[in-house]
């Protein structure tokens, strides 16, 4: 992993919701073009940490962040950083699939459109290639104009991934992308993650330890707002150096 340059580097990150501190001095390096899994019990701060990477936490009133997060070498906490541009490069897929009440085509074309792309042919090509990358094209190519709401849960989630790919991001953040899906759909999403990490840096939050061990190269274990341990997934799951990590992955708590 160390051969890859860092895509994201968090340095001494503290995060507060009002007076309540939820992240304590988190430092983590995410290598480029790899999958990093964030695991830990509910409320441990892993989702909050994920959302600091594209500054989605800005939407929460009274939240405050200290420390640095370097994305491609730039500190995104810098006031000069434009969150709109940041989010174009750091895409996000949510736990609950959130298709817009529009057609499948318009859902995928939304990101490029808000970024100013108007050319119908360019959009059509982009929509097709993104749907192909998300392994959804064959299922929807004949009904691109129908509502995205008519898709099944697993298809909706792959549509959300395609929609994210359409903005041509470098990094994709996934917040429990498969936790609401059936095993077959989960399998497809996991395979997709395996394919996408050849070109994209992926950070995934998951409650499912098997999933973390299956899809990720690097795993970071969070507990009560602190990053307890991080390292190659194999090592974390077989020889964790911290007692807490071992207790968690063997199911003794959490």
């Amino acid at each position, binding site marked *: 992993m160390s051969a890859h340059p860092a895509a994201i580097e968090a340095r001494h990150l503290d995060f507060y919701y009002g007076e309540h501190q939820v992240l304590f001095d988190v430092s983590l390096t995410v290598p480029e073009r790899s999958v990093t899994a964030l695991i830990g019990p509910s409320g441990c701060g892993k989702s909050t940490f994920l959302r600091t990477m*594209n500054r*989605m936490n800005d*939407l929460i*009133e009274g939240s405050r962040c200290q420390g640095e997060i370097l994305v491609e070498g730039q500190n995104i906490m810098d006031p000069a950083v434009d969150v*709109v*541009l940041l*989010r*174009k490069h750091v*895409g*996000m897929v*949510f736990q*609950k699939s*959130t298709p*817009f*009440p*529009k*057609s499948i085509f318009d859902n995928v074309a*939304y*990101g490029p459109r*808000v*970024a100013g792309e108007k050319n119908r042919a360019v959009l059509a090509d982009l929509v097709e290639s993104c749907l192909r990358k998300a392994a959804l094209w064959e299922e929807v190519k004949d009904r691109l104009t*129908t*509502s*995205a*709401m*008519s898709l099944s849960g697993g298809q909706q989630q792959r549509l*959300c991934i395609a*929609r*994210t790919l359409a*903005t041509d991001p470098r990094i994709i953040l996934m917040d429990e992308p498969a936790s609401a899906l059936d095993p077959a759909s989960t399998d497809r999403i996991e395979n997709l993650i395996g394919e996408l990490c050849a070109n994209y840096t992926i950070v995934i939050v998951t409650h499912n330890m098997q999933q973390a061990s299956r899809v990720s190269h690097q795993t970071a274990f969070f507990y009560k707002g602190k990053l307890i341990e991080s390292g190659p997934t194999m090592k974390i799951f077989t020889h964790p150096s911290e007692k807490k990590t071992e207790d968690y992955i063997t199911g003794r708590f959490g």
Partner: protein
Amino acid sequence: MSEQDPSGKSARTNAGFINGAPVNGESAKRRPAVSFVSGGDRHIRSRLMLSRVFAWLCRFSTYAALAVLVVLLAAIFYSSIGRLSPDFVTNTNSTSPVKAGILAGLWGSFWLILFTAMFSVPVGVGSAVYLEEIAKDSMLIRIIKVNLANLAGVPSIVYGILGYTVFRTSAAAIAELFDGKHVIGVLGLFKVRLSKLPMYEDNILVGALTLTLVILPTVIAASQEALRSVPGSIRVASLALGATRWQTIWRQVIPAALPGISTGVILSTSRAIGEAAPLIMLGALTYTSMCPGGIESPLELLTKPAQLLQAPLDQFTAMPIEIYDWSKQPDARFTAVAASGIVVLLVVLLSINSVAMVVRHFASRRLKW
């Protein structure tokens, strides 16, 4: 346990369960047979009776309201016999009950509603978007939100007084300022001599601005409600794709809220059509045979472009004002005229409400939920 069945007393006291199994099998066996036949139990009978009475009371209130409405409508239609005819809507007002028609009021109401909608939609929807989507939660915002409901409850005549003080007085001042002077029009493209374009202080625009005040709280409240019903996940997903707040509001939130917003706007507008009090307060004409701008048919909207400019600055009357006026006439034959006016007003209201239904249908069909 106050409602114990005497025959089952011993069974009840003995029935104890540990791990789902009766402790004392014998006493469990002795429990009396249960009957599901209605009327077997005094309590269930009274409870069912209460439930039935309640259902009947609700039914009665619904049908009583409906019956009153039907009687009212029938009475109005009956009274309108003798005057309700095609020429009632093509004639303007007259001192003769045989000739008096509602055309001037119809056109007055048309212009009023047109401008009321033009003023209230952008301001109302804009305020709602600001309050729901943009403003950060603060004391001031909370005070505004709470008081919007209070504003909606203010009697319309109060807005009439406000309209008189603010809009009519300003219109009078403007009219005086420009009277007889040449004015360079929009971007200097055309010259208008305002002395030839009579601007009255009790004009359509003043009326429409006042009606805007009347319905604005309702429009804002309906739009807020519609915006609140848009799931937050849509906003978050849009922002996460690199959309700005404006793009998120314009491309996702407002389209999703549009059915609710348009219904609210149209229903509020139809309320404005029935308003007489604030307009009378402003000094709208009660008796006139002039339509605003002299436009008397839809065709003249196209053939008399100069009058189009004049109409908003013209004096006016409105349907509810004319109806009120006719109902006060000593000549008993005017009763039929007033009733005919009400029929026309109701027809207009019903058409607007059906437009609301159609708009709602199409607005929600464009969304692909």
